[in-house]
């Protein structure tokens, strides 16, 4: 089985080709989807790649999350399909309420483009199942807004409305941020050094580091392959289930 992985292109995305290349290398039938697409066809998984979707106006990811394709992305997330947001894709997932929390400007107000070492904290997700707990992954970051902030602890039913298609629904509230990957040295002030977080179910993962940029030895690291192969493996397991 060759899992079908959709890589969504927003106006301003700029990592989609690298992601498709790297996913194909892991045995996926990866292809592009346009942000205006109403349907993702028969995709088994979806990746929101990095870039500057819709110019990052207002806030990073704030406008992209209203793109028509996000209705399908939300449906896939809700039915447990693997969804991965990388960098700007992570920002879009937080704005859409598919993973908890928010990403704001880096501590120190620096745009960071550097290699980072990440500790795998949680292997029970669709993006880390091929990893070992405690394993160190060397994967680069490239962002200005990667300072992860968890959702405020809420006692009651206060919830932010989340748009899904034409409907407004309550945003998932009360969710604790589940850290999947943690920086060994915190570069941006992120809460608890969070580099990647998951939703409660572990099928939706957002991460600031770019696994596709660590997918060939000549790039300096192949550790990102473990993230992308986790996604591909998750599709295969879902097909068997």
């Amino acid at each position: 089985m060759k899992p079908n992985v959709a890589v969504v292109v927003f106006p301003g995305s700029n990592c989609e080709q690298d992601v498709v290349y790297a996913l194909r290398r892991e045995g996926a039938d990866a292809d592009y989807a346009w942000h205006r697409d109403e349907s993702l066809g028969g995709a088994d998984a979806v990746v929101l790649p990095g870039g500057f979707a819709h110019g990052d106006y207002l806030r990073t990811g704030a406008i992209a999350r209203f793109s028509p394709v996000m209705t399908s992305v939300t449906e896939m997330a809700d039915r447990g399909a693997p969804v991965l947001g990388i960098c700007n894709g992570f920002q879009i997932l937080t704005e859409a309420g598919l993973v908890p929390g928010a990403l704001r400007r880096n501590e120190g107000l620096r745009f960071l483009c550097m290699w980072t070492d990440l500790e795998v904290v949680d292997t029970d997700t669709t993006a880390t199942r091929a990893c070992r707990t405690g394993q160190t992954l060397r994967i680069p970051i490239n962002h200005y807004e990667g300072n992860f902030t968890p959702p405020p602890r809420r006692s009651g039913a206060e919830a932010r409305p989340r748009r899904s298609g034409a409907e407004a629904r309550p945003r998932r509230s009360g969710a604790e941020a589940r850290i999947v990957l943690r920086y060994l040295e915190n570069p941006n002030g992120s809460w608890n050094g969070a580099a990647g977080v998951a939703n409660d179910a572990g099928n939706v993962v957002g991460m600031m580091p770019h696994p596709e940029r660590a997918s060939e030895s000549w790039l300096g690291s192949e550790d990102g392959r473990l993230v992308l192969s986790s996604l591909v493996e998750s599709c295969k397991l879902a097909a068997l289930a």
Partner: protein
Amino acid sequence: MTSSNGSRVKAVARIDVMLKPGISDVQGQVVERSLPAMGWENVSGVRVGKHLELLVEGASLDALKEQVEQMCERFLANTVIESYTVTVEPVEA
């Protein structure tokens, strides 16, 4: 949206979006650290936010304010980290 006498009101909505208290405001901190260098030594609590203005038209100021607050909840502010205030003021049509 028309009131009983058929009149409609046009208003300017002014929106301030700020990081919530307790969320560290790195921009505000940098501004605060810069002010003493220019001779202003007596400043603290600097916070930097966003100001938006838009024109809206509807049946009543109350209805318009509520509508703009919904815009903030769903789009103009990220209520995970930001809070907002809205004022609406009638303008000549």
